[in-house]
């Protein structure tokens, strides 16, 4: 388990992180979301030891993380960083060596990831000669090349075309299947919802929600129902206490319901022939808006 415990970090008077704690299990795909400036990058930098927290600590497999352990972490910073003039293969081998691989292991790992991420024909080129999409693939390879125990990726999907997104998603799922905790931040919430088992939502440096996506959706705020009543008067919901109409079109309504939902069904049946009555779970985007605006 990767545990972030009570991380606090200030920049002068600005509190970037305020007592942030959450846990990522091994083999879990974990989404880290929050508005711009919420503290995601600061938190990730602290996990990687690039930045020191004022308070709190990061634990991996029950032990505080030190520099030695961190060399077995993989990191992709939000602002991509590669040597523009260095050749792709040289660069990947160099990063692998820095993370402690032997010369031979570094060479074979670099070869594997160059192949796997589809940049084999550019292996001998300088990074600056590659398209941005390909540079991003090399950047990902740099995070993966030493076969890390933990993967931390800051906005890995931004700037990728749909094919690139699929390749990256597949690679990450693959790593997670190998038992590696994969934590990544993203503003593409549909993607997070699709890929991640669990998420943490932070705002202004504080954790506002965390846990498995399903649980969050199930427990998130008021419950919603989609109801379709044939031949009914359009205002059959008026007069129902604790019920708000969120959407309405072609006789179908989406309702936010507080308390017992059976009375809503009764009212619907009284109004006409009920052709649809189902619970709707809020999307991660809706949850996000809700918790961030609170």
């Amino acid at each position, binding site marked *: 388990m990767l545990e972030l415990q009570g991380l606090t970090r200030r920049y002068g008077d600005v509190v970037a992180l305020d007592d942030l704690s959450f846990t990522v299990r091994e083999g879990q795909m974990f989404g880290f979301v929050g508005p711009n400036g919420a503290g995601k990058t600061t938190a990730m*930098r602290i996990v*990687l*030891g*690039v*930045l*020191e927290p004022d308070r709190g600590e990061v634990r991996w497999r029950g032990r505080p993380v*030190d*520099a*030695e352990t*961190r*060399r077995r*972490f993989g*990191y*992709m*910073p939000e*602002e*991509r*960083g*590669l*040597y*523009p*003039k*260095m*050749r792709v293969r*040289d660069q990947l081998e*160099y*990063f692998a*060596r*820095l*993370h*402690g691989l032997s010369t031979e292991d570094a060479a074979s790992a670099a070869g594997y990831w160059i192949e796997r991420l589809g940049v084999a024909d550019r292996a001998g080129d300088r990074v600056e000669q590659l398209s941005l999409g390909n540079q991003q693939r090399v950047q990902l390879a*740099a995070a993966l090349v030493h076969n890390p125990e933990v993967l931390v990726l800051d906005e890995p999907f931004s700037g990728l075309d749909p094919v690139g997104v699929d390749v990256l998603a597949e690679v990450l799922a693959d790593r997670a299947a190998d038992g590696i905790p994969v934590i990544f931040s993203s503003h593409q919430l549909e993607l997070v919802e699709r890929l991640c088992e669990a998420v943490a939502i932070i705002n202004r440096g504080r954790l506002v929600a965390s846990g498995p996506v399903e649980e969050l959706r199930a427990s998130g705020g008021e419950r919603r129902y989609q109801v379709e009543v044939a031949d009914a008067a359009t205002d059959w919901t008026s007069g129902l206490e604790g019920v708000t109409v969120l959407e309405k079109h072609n006789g179908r309504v989406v309702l936010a319901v507080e308390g017992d939902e059976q009375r809503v069904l009764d009212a619907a049946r009284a109004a006409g022939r009920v052709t649809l009555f189902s619970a709707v779970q809020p999307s991660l985007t809706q949850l996000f808006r809700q918790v961030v605006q609170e």
Partner: protein
Amino acid sequence: MRASQMRTFDGIKLTARRELVERTRRDRSFLISTLVTLAILLAIIFVPKLLGANDPTEFNVGLAGAASQPIGQVLTAQAEAAGIRINLQQPASAADAEAAVRDGKLDLAVVDGRELVAKAEPDEQLSLLVQAASRAARAQQTLQSAGVDQAEIQAALAPPPLPVRSLEPVDEDARSKRTIATVAVFLLYGQLIGYCFAVAMGVVEEKSTRVVEVLLAAVRPVQLLAGKILGVGLVGLIQLAIIGAIGLAVAVASNTITLPPDATGTIGSVLLWFLLGYAFYSSMFAVAGAIVSRQEELQNTATPLNLLMIASFFIAFSSSVSGGGDTTLAKVSSFLPPVAPLIMPLRIAGGNAAPWEIALSLAIMLVSIVAVVLLAARLYEGAILRTGARVKLSDAWRSGRRQPATGRA
């Protein structure tokens, strides 16, 4: 503990090796700068020689009329002593001689032993030689006609040269040692300024491309800094060695300098002081790079350091020209760390640095290197991740302590 110490050196070694490989094998600018410096050095060696060759060492002199003939023999002998060759010609008449001079076939003509004919202003050296020869010839004739014995005439006209007594011991090698040291200080200054700036540019490159964040996830700031300084310095040293070896070989082969017996000592001391100077300056240049985020801004922060280096170079160079490093300025600045690496090799080569001066200068140098490197490491750590506006040194100092490198293992 031992394992983590080994890793520390691994990190330094790997980053240093990257600098070495990328800069020498993968970057053509190393080859180009080596060739350019070598070309400049060879120009320094050969240009005086070529200019010297333009100083004429061969003249055509015409002797017109019987009265001019005795001058010929004396002239040839004296010119030979001065390393000048005279081709004597015998124009048939004064008019012929004049015509030959006008055409440039003769540099000077002696007409009937009475006058010298030149096209315009005669070559100063040649005219001195001919005048002296003519005086000697006339004196010989006068003495001969007065019936003086031939041996006596010889003794009177060609007395042995006066012996020279030097008040101080003459070091036959001092001149070539100083030549080597002066050229070396020029080279050293070029390498120092070039490679210190390369360190600064390398730091900015890592910062502006943000690759530093990826690196710092694997190595600590001090390792990165140390690796860069060592790697770039090694490239500079290799280049210095290549240029020095070729330059010296060419200079010796072309007889521009004669190699003094302890030339290795002089060259060794130059290399030693290069390393000390590089250690002193490079970490400060790294800080100049770490506090800015773009290459363009580097000019501003590196300027004070450049000025310091230029000033030190001029102090060293001017004292080597005047008085061979024996002036008060030279003595005092031997103990100033920014100047010492440039001036000490000159003073040592010139033989006017006392052993205690060398020892004290070295000691001051080493202590200040340790101080500067520690200071620079902390400033570097405090500034390297802060992008955007130029980082104030005081801010860098304060946050330098919070980085993991100082606290954790």
